[in-house]
């Protein structure tokens, strides 16, 4: 693991003594595609009076060695399970794509001010990728090519650190649910599967139509899950958080102390009720077969996705497994509405990642990337904004990154 402490654009792409330099022309070449007429890269850093609007995805630079073998399977390397061997991580940096795509709900990322504490990407140096689509390109092509280019760029940045001494080395053991007498706790990660612009990829393919599956947690570290989901800004799970899944991190940290990390189940979030029921029952059965005593469940999306978590929690409890779900609250601007659209009925242990509807004011900033205007409010992107928390990128992170919760204000 290499900590990025300073960033700049320069003559060569290099990493020395915590300083990451990027040759902009090289970054642009890596992103070149027939569907993109023009690509621009710009750094923003924590504390800057800067805002990124229309944020699409964020990726942490990682590589497994020269040539890219094994990282982002299904995109940069063959679509097969990874997670073994050495992975080089540029910690404290991200490649962030931003701009207009259809069906993308505008996300706002502030690098300073009151929203900065709410977003993981406000604490990283971000190489922001802006783009102009080619006239003849379809939006689907733009989306696909942009995603591939961002992953190439992220891997290339990490390669710059291959010869640098690491700042830290983490050994991440493969979970063995047969270990010991401690409770065996796993993660169930629901993945949105609602078609183009609302899809997430596992080894390069959508989980849509598939069944829940048990994965090696190390596979997540190597980029097995890549986001192409642009709805509900505060409830997005960017690629960056799949690479750094907070529930997996929490389970790993405590594994062998007060629990045993039992593994990760990835599950699609189907859109119709019958399939939600089938997939939920299947996921619960899989947890049982994998030897879980308990599971932490996460979602991606709004009220519809609450149902997938709630139904799985109930199915797990039916099988005698303990279930805890992470939910955002939809309690209205004044916080007095019912919080959950589809609550569980048998399993009732819920953790709140905050109220989607509570409003906050973001001060004006000196510069904005990702677009000149915030279409949602029809104002220049640099202006003071009054917004619901729902618009702040990753502010209600369903993967549990954030420190927001709700308390009663008596």
């Amino acid at each position, binding site marked *: 693991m290499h900590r990025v402490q300073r960033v700049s654009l320069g003559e060569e792409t290099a990493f020395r003594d915590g300083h990451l330099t990027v040759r902009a022309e090289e970054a642009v070449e890596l992103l070149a595609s027939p569907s993109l007429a023009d690509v621009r890269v710009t750094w923003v850093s924590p504390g800057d009076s800067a805002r990124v609007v229309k944020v699409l995805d964020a990726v942490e630079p990682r590589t497994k060695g020269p040539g890219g073998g094994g990282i982002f399977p299904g995109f940069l390397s063959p679509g097969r399970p990874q997670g073994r061997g050495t992975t080089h991580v540029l910690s404290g940096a991200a490649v962030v794509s931003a701009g207009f795509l259809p*069906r993308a*709900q505008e996300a706002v990322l502030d690098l300073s001010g009151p929203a900065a*504490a*709410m977003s993981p990407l406000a604490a990283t140096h971000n190489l922001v990728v802006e783009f102009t689509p080619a006239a003849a390109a379809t939006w689907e092509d733009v989306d696909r090519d942009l995603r591939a280019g961002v992953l190439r760029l992220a891997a290339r940045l990490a390669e710059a650190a291959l010869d640098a001494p690491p700042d830290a080395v983490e050994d991440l053991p493969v979970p063995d649910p047969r270990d010991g007498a401690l*409770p065996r*706790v796993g993660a169930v990660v629901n993945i949105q599967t*609602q*078609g183009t612009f609302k899809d997430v990829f596992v080894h390069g393919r959508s989980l849509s139509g598939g069944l829940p599956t048990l994965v090696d947690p190390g596979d997540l570290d190597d980029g097995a899950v890549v986001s192409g989901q642009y*709805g*509900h800004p505060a409830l997005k799970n960017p690629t960056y958080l799949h690479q750094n899944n*907070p*529930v997996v991190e*929490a*389970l790993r940290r*405590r594994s062998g102390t*007060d*629990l045993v990390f039992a593994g990760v189940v990835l599950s699609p979030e189907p*859109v119709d009720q019958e399939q939600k029921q089938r997939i939920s029952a299947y996921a619960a059965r899989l947890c049982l077969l994998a030897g879980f*005593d308990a599971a*932490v469940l996460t979602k991606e999306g709004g*009220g*519809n996705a609450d149902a997938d978590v709630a139904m799985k929690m109930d199915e797990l409890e039916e099988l005698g497994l*303990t279930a*805890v779900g*992470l939910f955002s609250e*939809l309690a*209205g*601007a*004044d*916080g*007095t*509405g*019912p*919080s959950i*659209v589809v*609550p569980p009925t048998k399993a*009732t*242990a*819920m*953790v*709140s*990642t*905050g*109220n*989607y509807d*509570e409003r906050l004011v973001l001060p004006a900033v000196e510069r904005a990337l990702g677009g000149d205007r915030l279409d949602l409010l029809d104002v220049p992107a640099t202006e003071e904004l009054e917004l*619901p*928390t*729902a618009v702040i990128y990753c502010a209600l*992170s369903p993967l*549990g*990154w954030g*420190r*927001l*919760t*709700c*308390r*009663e*204000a*008596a």
Partner: protein
Amino acid sequence: MTRVVHYLNQFFVGIGGEDAAASGPASIEGPVGPGKRLQALLGDDFEIVATVHCGDDHAAGVPGADEEILALARGHQPDLVVAGPAFTSGRYGIACARVVAAATRAGVPAIAAMHDDNPGLEDAGAAVVVRSGPVAREMGPSLDTFAAAVRRVVVGEPVTGEHGRIGRVPRRNVLVDANAAERAVDLVLARLAGGGDSEVPLPRFDRVPPAPPVPSTADVTVALVTESALVPDGNPDGLESARATRWLRYALEDVDELAAGQYRSVHGGFSTVFANEDPHRLVPLDVARELEREQVIGRLHREYLVTAGNGTSVSNARRFGVEWAAELRRSEVRAAVFTAT
């Protein structure tokens, strides 16, 4: 000295009962009726400078009555608005709740008192409501609770269940030390050990019993309503694609089809590609017109009602439902087809 304005209905200020229920908002200097006892309980640090009153039918039934009443109250520069006690009186409770909700929205501290079963409790928004007895016979103890809570509100102390608080307590976002993933693992371990409190209360939803079936559709007006966010191309009224705060209506008179390109869904929660190829997939005007010609239905309503059902707060959704029901009833619509996505 804390300046207090007290809201009462026509009955408690002594204007009359049902015969005076239509009377509009008005104001009297100083405390009146139960206000006199409340003034005595609050003591010399408080002054009920005025009593604003209104007939229950007007206050609960006329749109904007809450703002009218609040404007009268604000004319007396109150530091605090108090309303009730309304006991189990429905229209009075709704009026008290809306007045304190309006005051709270306007930044004026406000508190109401009513019984737990009063339907007005739902309308109080973020304002504090404390318990009263069920009937006016319990005015004495109800005012004791009310006065104690008023004192707490004025100095900014929390009013909790212990102080008689009822209704919804606003939930506010706060940053805590541990992230949600760590808290979830803590909760798993606590649950495995037999304890652990959920951070989210289980909601209680309204259950609305379905209306009885329409005996014959051949002689009634049928409406098309939808949460699919189908609007004329260009979204002229700016319907939100998510977290809708309002609904819209579009004319269907002399419209026989919703042509691709002329209508478009702005819904942010699903892929609208197929729907936009044929908007009838969202609002089935084509089939409805056929049924109208074949006299399977009497008449199609002259407009369709639309909002976007995507991340909509339950409180807004409830309001849309109430407003749609009232709107359709006024138009003598007897049945509606609600297309959802």
